[in-house]
């Protein structure tokens, strides 16, 4: 690391690479073994529309849980699908009570670490796939249960919080339902 050229602010390393991946005596790339490695920083930020999903997230602010329903085949989608994948028909918004049952899950010891909402979570945490009462599909979200105790067919409910959150999906999570 001593021969770093301080005039090149991004420089990380200069070295002569060993041809360890070349078998035989003659390295055909012997004249190309000097390697310089730099930091390449690309900052990507978007104005990201939640599009036709938006009303789902907006209603979370109001403590309401919406799916969509196909008026032809009666399938209820959570997360919502604006277009029924069975009928190729535009769906209708459909409110659900927010109670349901865990159908499969994983206790995660690492998260996607994708936003501040996730980064503040204590690990491990449970990713639960929940069949909400009245829905046809499973909704994936974090299940906050004591000691991460979870089992298949465990009853849970949507719990709303006031934020602040970075991504509106975190205006909700699942918690065990006392029935």
């Amino acid at each position: 690391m001593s021969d770093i050229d301080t005039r090149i602010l991004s420089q990380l390393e200069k070295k002569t690479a060993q041809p360890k991946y070349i078998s035989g005596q003659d390295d055909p790339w012997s004249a190309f073994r000097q390697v310089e490695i730099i930091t390449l920083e690309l900052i990507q930020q978007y104005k990201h529309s939640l599009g036709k999903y938006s009303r789902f997230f907006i209603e979370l602010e109001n403590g309401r849980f919406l799916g969509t329903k196909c008026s032809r085949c009666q399938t209820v989608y959570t997360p919502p699908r604006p277009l029924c994948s069975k009928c190729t028909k535009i769906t209708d918004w459909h409110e659900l009570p927010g109670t349901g049952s865990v159908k499969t899950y994983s206790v995660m010891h690492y998260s996607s670490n994708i936003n501040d909402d996730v980064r503040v979570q204590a690990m491990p945490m449970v990713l639960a796939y929940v069949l909400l009462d009245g829905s046809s599909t499973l909704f994936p979200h974090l299940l906050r249960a004591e000691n991460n105790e979870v089992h298949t067919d465990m009853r849970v409910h949507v719990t709303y919080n006031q934020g602040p959150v970075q991504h509106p999906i975190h205006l909700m999570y699942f918690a065990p339902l006392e029935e």
Partner: protein
Amino acid sequence: MTDRLPVVVGVGLTPFAASRDDCNVRDLAVEAVLACMHDAELESLHAIQHGLTSYESDHFNRQMTLGAILHDTLGLNPTPNVRVEGGGATGALALRTAWAYIQSGLCDSILVYGCETNGKSISSQTANQLFALSADVDWEMMVGGTYTAFYAAMMHAHMEKYSTKREHFAHVAVRNRRNALDNPNAQKPMDISIDEVLNSRPIAEPYTLFDCSLLSDGAAAILLSTEGWAKQHSPAFSVRPKVVFTATGCGTDTMRLGDRYPNLTNFAGKREAARQAYQMAGISDPLHEIDVAELYDSYSGVEIQAVEDLGFVSQGSGGPAIADGLFDRDGYLPVNTSGGLLGRGAPVGATGIAQAIEVVQQLWESVTPERQIHNARRGLTDTHAGIGTICVVNIFERRD
């Protein structure tokens, strides 16, 4: 159509590694293509009529329009080029596309080269963001989910429905890394025990560290052509067993696992891909009619699901069949003799091509003696994207 079935003219690949910081992605592609050219005993690439570039991510490789740039780098201008992308299935989808290009008469020869730098050059924070983009970005990744967890939730459902045990898939983690010991191109050969897999640190339960496959830098290339083109241009072609790319199938499934309810345990898209490929190849009993296979072991349990969905064993019986050694190197149908994604590694755009190379070289009987399967006549590759969101099954046969 039969007289235009593509034959394999040459193959080449770089070793797979966690970091090839002596190379950028162009250099890796060049290494693989040169190896392929030498394997086919071509003097140059000039007679090749078409190029096909296989890579998953502009972000992994820090380059857009990489197809055009690699085509240029290789000196293939002004011949046509097409780039193919299909997530984890990219390399297999690339070969399938090449199959169609030759079958259609669009070209008589096509160089399929795949590469990816998704190893250590990508910081963990950047990798998290890029993998988030490869799932449905507004939903399960944003709540904190990871691909390991999506696969783990599938495996959990499989364990509950079929009494599959962690020891069953730990067998895959052990066997594929041991197979890699005899592959000099493998990234992470290891001789570990079932207990070491079970006791390695949990990542997303039931999966532990050793149940998870590798992130890699690497490249792979295959030259396909009509038999006539191969005879005319490649001296190597007539002196080794003829291997024909006889069949290809592709199936798809929903992006999000929850949308598949109540089918959570297996890959419906893979069953569809296999059905198409078997029909095309005239296979009715795949366990007995396939001699060697490379399966997409992105996680150890995925191989259990794969042997079921490919019809090697019945639904739910994959775990015991694997633990009994049915798919070991000395078993009835050896799989992942290369080491698979667990042992050899997985530079995404190269993975499906590298799987095909292992199968082709098994049919040529040109792999290292320790891992050579004798008298193999028909081989299969199984590759998928997401959690089986795009699935491709390709079949290669020795015809001599």
